């Protein structure tokens, strides 16, 4: 069996090279792989294409850190706070570098990944007819139903080089359970050439096999499994921790200016080696407040025959 368990630095080093396209934030505002994103910044990656419907402030951080030349997304900013300051500086002023933006809607981004996962060149839809989002863009083609002549938009397939998906638990081979709100995680993982799973817990294969319906992806797509508790903080992971709303607000204030952002990156990424130290810096009192206050265990399912 191929060894798939890696540390975060190893996984980023091996599987996220300069210039690649990487899907992150597939589950919208939850399960965002912030720890992986911070490691990408620490390793000084360049010329990345980021793919994700709404990745909250992770994309803003990577853009500000100079890692990104292109972004393919439906919404980029700080969801609970407003505009992404680094995103704006990049598009409006080319600071720290020019940024190419391929605009999607949530639906068309999902469809692009679905087409990629199906191995077909495009998928037709009725969404965005009449919208400027499709005018003169390479992601779309205005077309028509061959039988009725009714207008259709063809959304071209997206096949990211690598998807980074945060999950609650995985075995060592990448058979993983994920629950909560999944967004485009399934189609995104299937469409990508390879998947890095970041898991709160590594568990025995038998545990995963006890519930095959809850397995997110075929492990054949998984190239790396990283055990990283709190790897999605400040975004939430159902059953493990809530959203650290204050952290988003603090980032929004800090990143208002370029200098403020650079200081924030020093404080939270560059002077920190790993997620454990990051949590220490955040402070146990803040972290404790994010842990679930109780359990909401689902009804068991019986696969017996």
């Amino acid at each position: 069996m191929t060894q798939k368990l890696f540390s975060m630095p190893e996984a980023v080093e091996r599987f996220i090279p300069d210039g690649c396209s990487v899907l992150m934030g597939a589950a919208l505002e939850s399960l965002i792989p912030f720890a992986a994103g911070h490691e990408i910044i620490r390793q000084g990656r360049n010329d990345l294409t980021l793919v994700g419907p709404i990745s909250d402030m992770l994309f803003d951080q990577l853009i500000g850190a100079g890692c990104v030349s292109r972004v393919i997304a439906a919404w980029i900013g700080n969801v609970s706070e407003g505009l992404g300051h680094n995103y704006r500086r990049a598009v409006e002023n080319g600071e720290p570098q020019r940024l190419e933006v391929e605009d999607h809607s949530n639906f068309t981004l999902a469809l692009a990944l679905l087409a990629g996962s199906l191995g077909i060149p495009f998928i037709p839809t009725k969404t965005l007819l009449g919208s400027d989002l499709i005018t003169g863009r390479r992601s779309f083609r205005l077309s028509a139903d061959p039988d009725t002549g009714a207008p259709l938009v063809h959304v071209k397939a997206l096949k990211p080089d690598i998807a980074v998906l945060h999950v609650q638990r995985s075995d060592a081979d990448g058979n993983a359970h994920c629950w909560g709100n999944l967004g485009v995680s399934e189609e995104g993982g299937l469409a990508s050439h390879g998947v890095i799973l970041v898991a709160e817990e590594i568990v025995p294969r038998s545990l995963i096999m006890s519930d095959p319906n809850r397995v997110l992806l075929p492990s054949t797509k998984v190239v790396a499994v990283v055990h990283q508790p709190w790897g999605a903080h400040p975004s939430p992971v159902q059953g493990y921790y809530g959203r650290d709303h204050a952290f988003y607000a603090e980032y929004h204030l800090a990143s208002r200016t370029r200098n403020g952002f650079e200081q924030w990156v020093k404080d939270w990424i560059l002077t920190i080696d790993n997620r454990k130290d990051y949590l220490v810096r955040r402070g146990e009192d803040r972290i404790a407040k994010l842990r679930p206050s109780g359990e909401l265990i689902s009804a068991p399912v019986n696969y017996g025959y």
Partner: protein
Amino acid sequence: MPPRSRAPCDPQCSLASREVNREIGYTAHELMVAVAARQIRDGELVFVGMRLPLMAFALAKRMHAPRAVGLFECGLMRDAPSPELLYTMSDPPNVAGAIWSTRMINVMALLQQGAVPLGMLGSAEVDRFGNLNTSHIGSRERPTVKLPGSGGAADIASLAGRVVIMMQHERRRFRERVDCVTSPGFGDGGDWRRRVGLPGGGPCAIITTLGMLSFDLETKEALLASHHPGVTPDDIRRQTGWPLRPSATVHETVPPSETELAIIRAYDPKGVWARP
């Protein structure tokens, strides 16, 4: 006399008990939430966004639309609002107690197959024909302000049966024509939607901090439908970037009742969204 036919979003839609209390103050946002809630019909599937539209859904469920069901573009369906105030639609309290948690593409499928009669949207800019801009102010190549993008708004605007827009009413936001049609309204008017092939019905109301606009059934131009208490039609015209014409039934907006306010304030006790 034949019964008066009601347009899809009838600004005079009234509720059972209207204990209006003018001595209780309320904010413009609280009023907007109350007005938006009245647009939700019992039993409807509604694409709810965050913030004010979500509060409108919570209020409508408690008032006249107990069987309304909420859809969130991340892939959630709820028939009861989350017990906790949400900062994002993916917050864990929104998942716990959902009646369906699925892939985003499945809720979008419901939208595209025509099963969602109502969507609620905010926007940075709106124009005379209800087109929304959340992409860029200024040119696409060198924008003055790069805005966050569509999210699911363009899909909702394209595919929902009708759309209610909720916005801050300022002249710089209410433009003759938006710089970018992110989310299509009525294009350049008339039968534009049919011509471009859009299946959804388009916007039916713009609920703002100053009043409410409805849409002319033929020309699809936005018209003044109501002005909030303390606001005159002239105030609204001054804050609108095109010559705003009145609808046939301009009136003063019915303010929130004591009951409606109590529900709004119970949902958002710190006024995070309703009393900014």
